[in-house]
């Protein structure tokens, strides 16, 4: 269930890690593609809240090059369908996410991201 949408809103929150703590970097991932219902309204509503560059870079890293480097002004159907696929249909089932700054590793298991920190790591 770690989809790229989820990935796009998670940042490292370890103690004293406040800059360059996003996006977390996927490692050793197992992907699964699962179809989801296409909902253009949802995509349009959420688009302004996305970190576009992080999304595109991550998609490319996972082998999907369907998104333009700049967010387009015209939201045509083809673009929305690609966005839908990238955000909601690519599931990272296993693997981990590493903070680009402090290198803390957040594991993913059975599709659920483990963002818990030990007591001494909490800011």
């Amino acid at each position, binding site marked *: *269930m770690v*989809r790229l*949408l*989820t990935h*796009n*809103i*998670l*940042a*490292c*929150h370890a103690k004293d890690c*406040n800059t360059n*703590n*996003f996006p977390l970097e996927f490692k050793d991932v197992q992907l699964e593609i699962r179809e*989801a*219902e296409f*909902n253009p*309204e*949802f995509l349009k*509503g*959420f688009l302004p*809240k996305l*970190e576009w560059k992080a999304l595109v870079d991550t998609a490319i890293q996972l082998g999907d090059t369907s998104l333009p480097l700049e967010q387009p002004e015209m939201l045509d159907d083809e673009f929305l369908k690609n966005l839908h696929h990238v955000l*909601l249909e690519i599931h990272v089932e296993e693997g981990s996410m590493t903070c680009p700054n402090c290198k803390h590793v957040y594991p993913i298991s*059975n*599709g*659920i*991201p*483990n*963002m*818990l*920190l030990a*007591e001494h790591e*909490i800011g």
Partner: protein
Amino acid sequence: MIPTPDTSHLTARDYEQVYEPAEDTFLLLDALEADADRLKELNPTICLEVGSGSGCVTSFIGGILGPSVLYLCTDINPHACRCTYLTGVQNKVNIHVINGSLAAPLQSRLSHKIDVILFNPPYVPTTEDEANVAQSSRNIGGSWSGGSDGMQVTNMLLDSVANLLSPKGHFYLVVLKQNNISRILQHMDELYHLEGEIVLQRRAGREHLFIVRFIRQGRSTVE
């Protein structure tokens, strides 16, 4: 009438590890149902439930607000995360589940972006030790053990909610009488300019439970 979510896929074994929907859960559902029109008018983009347990509450609000909202849930208990996801599937609500404490991993990306926040916290007064153990063992004990005044976990969220709520944001909190509502309201008002209002209350056995709704000051009406 919004139907109570279908939780028939969860079994007694799940409820050994995960909080089973109870009076507090249903009071929160009733408050959300009473606020259904108001919530729809908000036209929310993001809804976050902290401590989602079985996933019953988010599945319910998913029935009110429909599929064009991003539903996020966090829980420290990994079993709860699994149940939340499954309950979403069962009720056709697409829930993004994160195994984490409160809203910590969302704090930086979703600052001032969340329109609806829900929290039915571990609110039972216990010793501080018991609450600490419950928090670190991440099991079902963390469902109720709330430390002194039952506010140990809730207080941490109260101090981060103002940063998360969008300008029109609504925050619904389950509170037990012993948690001292007037002190909570004063704290939120003075420190964060969030205005709290009791929207529903009920006696359930020994517990006197309240639902408090917080909005930003001067926002008594929805635009």
